[in-house]
C-alpha cells in the first residue's frame, strides 16, 4: 500500500512540474525514479551456506577448524542476488563504513555490507530496500561474524608455518570501494524504516541463540539498564561514559547492560557522537534497540556477543529523562 501512495505522490509531482514549464526532454519514467528492481535469488542464509567457508589457515588450530577470519569469492554461473532493508545508520558515527541489511521474511537473517565510504546513510538510509548482486564480491568472517565485501590480506597478522617456512597471512573480508558498491547495490523505492521491526528478546534468549542466525539482526531488549561495569569490572567515575578514548588503539568499548535475565555488552566506538556522554544511571530502565554483533578473536576464546547502538535514540521508552539530561 505504501508503495502505491509514494508512486502517486511522484506522479503528482511530475504532473505539477510538467504543467508549469516547457521541457524539451522526456520526463524520467516513474519506474526509473524508484531505482533498480532486481529479482532475489538467494536468502542471506543460502548465500552464507553456499559460499562462506571455514578456510582460515591463519587462525585454525588442531583443536579448532571453524574459521575466524575468512574471505571467499562469490562465484556462480547464475545471478546471486540477496535483498532486504537497511537497518543501520552512520549518522552518529558509531556505525562506520558499513551498513546492515536485514530480510523482512519469517526467519530472515541479516548481514553486514562493508564499503570504503563514510556517510553511507545519505545514500542508503534506514528502511531503504536494497538488492545486492553478489557475484564477484566476497563473503567472509571477521572474528566469526559474517560480512560481504572484498578480500583483504592483513599483512600485520601472520604466522610462519614451521614445516614449509611459508608465511600465512590473515585473510579478512575487507571494504569494497564505493564504485564497486554502487555497481552491486540496487536501492529501490523510498525508505520505510517501519518495515523491519526489531525482535523483542531477553538477554538470556539472545545468549541462548545461535549467533550464526542472529548476528547482525535488529533486536529490542526490554526493561534493560546499564550496570556501570565493563566486562564485569567496575568503571571509575572518569570512565563512566560510553567510550573513553583508546588513544588510537581503536577497538570499541564495552559497557554491560542487564535485564535481570543476564548480562551482555554494548560496544561503542570512541568516535561515536555520544562516546563521551555520561552512561545512563542504572535507575533508567527501558527499551534498548541494538544491532546484534558477535566477536571471536582467538580459537581458544569462547567468542561473545557485542551489541551496537546505532544512535543514542536506540535508548527508547524508559530513557526519555536520560536523553533529555544529555541533550
Amino acid at each position, binding site marked *: 500500500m505504501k508503495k502505491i501512495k509514494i508512486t502517486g505522490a511522484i506522479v503528482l509531482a511530475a504532473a505539477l512540474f510538467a504543467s508549469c514549464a516547457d521541457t524539451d526532454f522526456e520526463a524520467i519514467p516513474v519506474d526509473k525514479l524508484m531505482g533498480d528492481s532486481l529479482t532475489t535469488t538467494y536468502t542471506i542464509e543460502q548465500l552464507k551456506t553456499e559460499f562462506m567457508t571455514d578456510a582460515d589457515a591463519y587462525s585454525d588450530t588442531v583443536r579448532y577448524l571453524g574459521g575466524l577470519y575468512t574471505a571467499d569469492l562469490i562465484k556462480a554461473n547464475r545471478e546471486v542476488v540477496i535483498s532486504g532493508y537497511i537497518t543501520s545508520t552512520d549518522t552518529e558515527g558509531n556505525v562506520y563504513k558499513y551498513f546492515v541489511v536485514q530480510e523482512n521474511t519469517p526467519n530472515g537473517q541479516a548481514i553486514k555490507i562493508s564499503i570504503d565510504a563514510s556517510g553511507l546513510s545519505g545514500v542508503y538510509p534506514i528502511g531503504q530496500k536494497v538488492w545486492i548482486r553478489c557475484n564477484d564480491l566476497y563473503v567472509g568472517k571477521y572474528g566469526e561474524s559474517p560480512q560481504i565485501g572484498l578480500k583483504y590480506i592483513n599483512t600485520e597478522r601472520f604466522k610462519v608455518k614451521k614445516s614449509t617456512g611459508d608465511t600465512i597471512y590473515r585473510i579478512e573480508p575487507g571494504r569494497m570501494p564505493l564504485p564497486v558498491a554502487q555497481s552491486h547495490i540496487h536501492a529501490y523505492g523510498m525508505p520505510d524504516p517501519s518495515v523491519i521491526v526489531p525482535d523483542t528478546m531477553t538477554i538470556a534468549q539472545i545468549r541462548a541463540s545461535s549467533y550464526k542466525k542472529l548476528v547482525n539482526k535488529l533486536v529490542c531488549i526490554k526493561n534493560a539498564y546499564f550496570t*556501570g*561495569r565493563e566486562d564485569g569490572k*567496575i*568503571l571509575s567515575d*572518569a570512565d563512566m561514559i560510553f567510550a573513553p578514548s583508546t588513544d588510537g588503539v581503536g577497538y570499541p568499548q564495552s559497557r554491560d547492560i542487564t535485564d535481570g535475565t543476564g548480562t551482555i555488552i554494548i560496544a561503542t566506538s570512541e568516535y561515536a557522537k555520544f562516546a563521551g556522554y555520561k552512561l545512563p544511571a542504572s535507575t533508567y530502565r527501558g527499551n534498548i534497540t541494538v544491532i546484534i554483533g558477535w566477536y571471536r578473536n582467538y580459537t581458544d576464546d569462547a567468542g561473545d556477543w557485542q551489541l551496537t547502538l546505532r544512535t543514542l535514540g536506540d535508548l527508547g521508552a524508559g530513557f526519555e529523562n536520560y536523553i533529555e539530561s544529555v541533550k
Partner: protein
Amino acid sequence: MKNFNKYKLLIGTLALALVGCSNLDESAFEVIEDTNNVIYSETFENDLGEFTTQNVSGEQQWVYNSSKYVIMSGYVSPTDYANEDWLISPEIDLTGLSAAHFSFDHAARYFANILTDVTVWISTDYVTGNLPATATWTQLTTKTFSDPGSWTFGNSGQISLTQYTGQKVKIAFKYVSTSKKAGTWEIKNFLVEKGEAEIVVGNDGSEEFPFTVQEAMLNQTNASAWVEGYIIGYLWSGVQTTYHFSADTCTQATNILIADTNALSQIYVAKSMAVQLPSGAVRTGLNLTANKANLGKKVTMYGMLSSYFSAPGLKSVSYYKFEDGTSGGTKPIKAIFSETFANSSKGNFTIENVNMPAALSYIWTPTATYGMTASAYKSPTDYESESWLISPAIDLSKVTSATLMFDHALNYVANAANKLNYISVWMSSDYQSGLPASATWTRVIVPTYPAGNNWTFVSSGNADISSMAGKNKVRIAFKYTSIAGDAATWEVKNVVIY
C-alpha cells in the same frame, strides 16, 4: 621560609626605590615565591633514575615503563608468581633540616592484601646494592592504600620524614605477591620536600572514619568495618537477580542496597553495594519492606566486608545508626588492639621457641583461615615442646581497665583433663625481646577453653587483664606446650583488647 621572606623584602625595597623615578611596569616586580623546597625528585619519566632494585624472590622485577612510570607485577598472564621486590631510592640527605616529607603518585591493584603487599620502608644503614635484609628497615606509616578501581594514578599523601631529619636515609617500595595472587604496583613522581607533612586522614573503616561505599567495595578483606552510605534500594533474588532502586513494592527484607549518592541520576549497579540484614534489630530497623521512608537516608553500619550476591558486599551487619541518632543492633566494642591473624599473617606478633625439637621447623605458624596454629606433632610423633606467640607492645597507659578476647580451637588432646597444662595465656609489662624467661609474666584467666577434640572455634569470653591497665608496654602471650605422646593443635585468631 626564611629565604622567601628575604627575597620579598629585597624586591619590595627595590620596587619602592624604583617607583619614584620611572613608570616601569609594576608587574616586573612581582614577588617570586621561593619554591625551592625540593630535596629530591624522581619522576620516573625516562628510567629508574638513581633508584635501584632488589629482587629478593621471584623472577619478576621492578622495571621502567615507557608510559613514564615504574612498575612491578608478579602477574604474567595468565599466571600469578610469588615475588618480593624492592625499589630503593638513592641516599636522601636530611641533615640540617628540621622537617621533611615525601609523596608519590601510584596505582596498586589486584593485591590479595594491599595492606601487607604494598608497603613503604626507610633505612639509615642500607648500603646500595646489598639485599634489603642486610640493613635495618622501618615501615613508614602511610594513609591506607586501597585499590583505586582503575589505572588512574592517585597521590600517596604526604608522608612525614621529620623523625629522620639530621640523617641520611634511603626509602624503599616493597612489593610482595604469592602464587595465588600477584598484584601490580605502578609508581611515579617521587618527591621529597622540606617542611612538615600535611597529613590528610583517610577513611580506615573505623567508627570515626567509616569507609565510603566505594572504599568498602575495594576493601573486601572479610574483616569487619564501619561503612557509611545512602540506602538506595534492594536486591530481588529469585530466578533472576535484579537491582531495585526504589522501596515502593519492596517485599525483600533480607537486604538493602547502599551507594555514595542518593541522586537517582547518579546511581549505578556497579557503584552500589548489597548489605545483608541478619534477622533481629538490624533487619527490623533497616529493611525497605517495613521502612519505606528509609530510602534515600544516610546510614552508618558495622559489618563484614565480604562478597554478597557475587559482588562486593557488607554482611553480618550487627549495628546501624542514622544521622538523626536512631540506631539498632549491638554496637561493637572499640578495640584498643586487634589482630585477626587472617590471610596467613602473624601481624606484629613474634614467636619464641623455648623448646623446639630438632625434628620440627616450626611450632607456631600462620594459616590462611585458621589464624595462628601451634603444634608439635610431626607424623607420627608427638614431641615435647614449648613455644610462645608474643604480641607487640600494647599501650594500656590511658585506660583503667582492659579485657582480652580471642577465638580459639583445640584438637588432638590425648587426655582432655590436661588441656589447661598445654595451652595458656600470659601477660607482661616488662618483656622486651628474646626468650620469655627474661620477663615477669602473669597468667591470664581465660573463661572458655575449647573442648580439645574438635576444630570448633570458641570465644575465649572476656578475660580480665585490668592488672595491666596504666602500663604502656603490655604484652600478651599465647603459650603452647606439649609432652612426648601428647601434642595437641591449638588455633588462635581474632585477638581483641578493649
